[in-house]
């Protein structure tokens, strides 16, 4: 699915990623844990092609495609989805129009026929229920006036609409109360197909209890310094990152 080799990346000239190697196979969920500023969000931004970041070395191959030669929307339409840590508000653009444009673009890339307005609204209704997103919210402008938890649910709702092959959940658990966390995580589990892969970025074990990662990585100072099974998440939850940051 996704293969990252010796990835170095900078923002505003400052090197954040200092040689990442990561292989994610079909159907695997990888957790990336680490301290603030370790480069977790940079990693997700670089994978999806945020133009604010520069890749200085290395490569990313996604299902045989060289991602670094593709622009942001091409990567998205190839099936890569980022659930944003802080989803931005877009005043004046209704969720419906926004999703319509996104779904049209994705369907076009998949060679599927465009949905009629009626079918599209029906799909919106179905997927909304999956993450228990209030119908009032899909009538509003994108993320405008949404609470923190509603924004995160809205991210998972968009994932449901776009049916990506590979998802990055960037601190989806931050700002969520226990119930909201459960709804979001269960929504994600319902959505994923057997071959859907994901990177889950988090500080805490809570989300991982629901998502059950196959592999856990510890990212410190731009490098993956330890990789293990689910037990690694438990260990970090107990002891924190002190053992690693002292290295």
């Amino acid at each position, binding site marked *: 699915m996704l293969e990252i080799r010796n990835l170095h990346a900078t923002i505003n000239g400052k090197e954040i990623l200092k040689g990442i190697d990561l292989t994610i196979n079909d159907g695997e969920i990888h957790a990336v844990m680490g301290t603030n500023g370790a480069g977790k969000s940079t990693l997700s931004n670089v994978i*999806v*092609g*945020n*133009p*604010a970041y520069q890749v200085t070395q290395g490569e990313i191959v996604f299902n045989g495609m060289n991602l670094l030669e593709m*622009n*942001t*929307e091409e990567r*998205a*339409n190839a099936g890569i*989805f*980022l659930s*944003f840590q802080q*989803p*931005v508000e*877009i*005043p*004046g*653009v*209704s969720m419906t*129009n*926004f999703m319509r*444009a*996104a779904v049209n*673009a*994705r369907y076009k*890339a998949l060679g599927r026929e465009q949905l009629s307005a009626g079918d599209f609204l029906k799909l919106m209704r179905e997927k909304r229920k999956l993450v228990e997103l209030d119908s009032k919210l899909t009538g509003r*402008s*994108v993320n405008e006036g949404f609470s923190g938890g509603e924004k995160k649910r809205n991210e998972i709702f*968009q994932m449901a609409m*776009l049916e990506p092959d590979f998802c990055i959940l960037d601190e989806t658990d931050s700002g969520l109360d226990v119930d909201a966390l459960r709804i979001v995580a269960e929504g994600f589990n319902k959505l994923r197909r057997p071959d859907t892969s994901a990177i889950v970025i988090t500080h805490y074990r809570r989300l991982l209890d629901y998502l059950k990662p196959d592999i856990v990585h510890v990212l410190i100072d731009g490098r993956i310094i330890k990789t293990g099974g689910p037990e690694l998440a438990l260990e970090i939850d107990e002891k924190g990152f002190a053992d690693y940051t002292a290295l």
Partner: protein
Amino acid sequence: MEDVAREFVNKDYEYGFHTDVHTEIIAKGLDENVVRLISEKKGEPEWLLEFRLDAFRYWQTQEPPSWAHLDMPEIDYQDISYYADPTSGKKDGKDGAKEIDPELMKTFDKLGIPLEERMALAGVAVDAVMDSVSVKTTFQEKLRENGIIFCSISEAVRNHPDLVRKYLGSVVPYRDNYFAALNSAVFSDGSFVYIPKGVRCPMELSTYFRINAMGTGQFERTLIICDDDAYVSYLEGCTAPMRDENQLHAAIVEIVVMDRAEVKYSTVQNWYPGDKDGKGGVLNLVTKRGHLRGVDSRLSWTQVETGSAITWKYPSCILSGDGAQAEFYSVAVTNNRQQADTGTKMIHIGKNTKSTIISKGISAGKSQNSYRGLVKVAADADGARNYSSCDSLLLGSTCGAHTFPYMDIHNDTAIVEHEATTSKISEEQLFYCRQRGISTEDAVSLIVNGYAKDVINKLPMEFAVEAQKLLGVSLEGSVG
């Protein structure tokens, strides 16, 4: 790289072609003889020639205005031809009317304005004006069944001289301003509309203005009279070929609204804006004004301004009738080197009059976009109300947005509110859209249309769709 960029910018303006049609153009230059010649060509009565000459003599004493926030090129009025007739190549037909050159019909087809009635947009009657002459007005017969007059102003002068004489210059006198005086002296064609008492016009009326000939100016003159209890919705569209020189379009639109009558006037202005370096483009210097004479009369101006190198335009309302209500909805887009100084004047004279101003400016590239508005409440205008909201949206950091609201209030009971905001399309917003698979161009179009939807929604539906597309196209290449 430069060439690719230029091609891209030019490609955006898809109406930039020229029609090769025999056109009679009078020699360049402006003096009394030219004014007389135009009047003679149109076979006008003496009183109209006198009107033109008075205007011309007044114009000669005036200086062009300099108060707008515009960097206006100097216009050499002697280097312009004031009359171009693209219908001159054809002999008069049997019934006295000129046959229409098929090339002209094709041109309007290409612009999406078919002049064959059977091909036309359902429910829209069109007056098609190219350069100085109205080529054809559709559905005239059908409208006449309701007593509605819809024709070119030249035809109205011939067939309805009393109405024209009564109202021409009654809303915008030639002394109003420099360009109004010029227009009054040399105006060529435009539309005339009369809706009789109690008639609700069953179709949208529309005029399509096209500049074609080179080195000419277009001096549109439109007069709309909506009698007691009548209603009409009117739409104006405009395009021009791409040329390296500036072209002058100096228009006057006058609207008279009687008791309980209602007029909706919509403009989708897409004159050639010049290339990305600011070469060429139409100078759009326009005086539009409505006089709400009647009690409870209503007038709304809706404009979507995407074209022109320079726009100088303030569609205004004089609210004389008690209970009159006026609205101004505007979206003005400027990109590259375009400049717009546009807004409205709301003059409250009658009691309990109400006006609403919603202005949305969108600036990109190295353009300058200004809102300029006046709200005036006269001493006797008890209970006058105005609400103004002026928003600016910036794309990038090299453009400018400016707001110049003026208020002149002489009555203590008036309630006048003004709100203004400035916002920017952020990199984060674009990135978010692109991560969802939406291209930058589509994302800008989505955001801009969302921002402008309060105004776009006021347009008749067929044109709202066109306007939405136009907003996206006008801003292509402005981000990224």
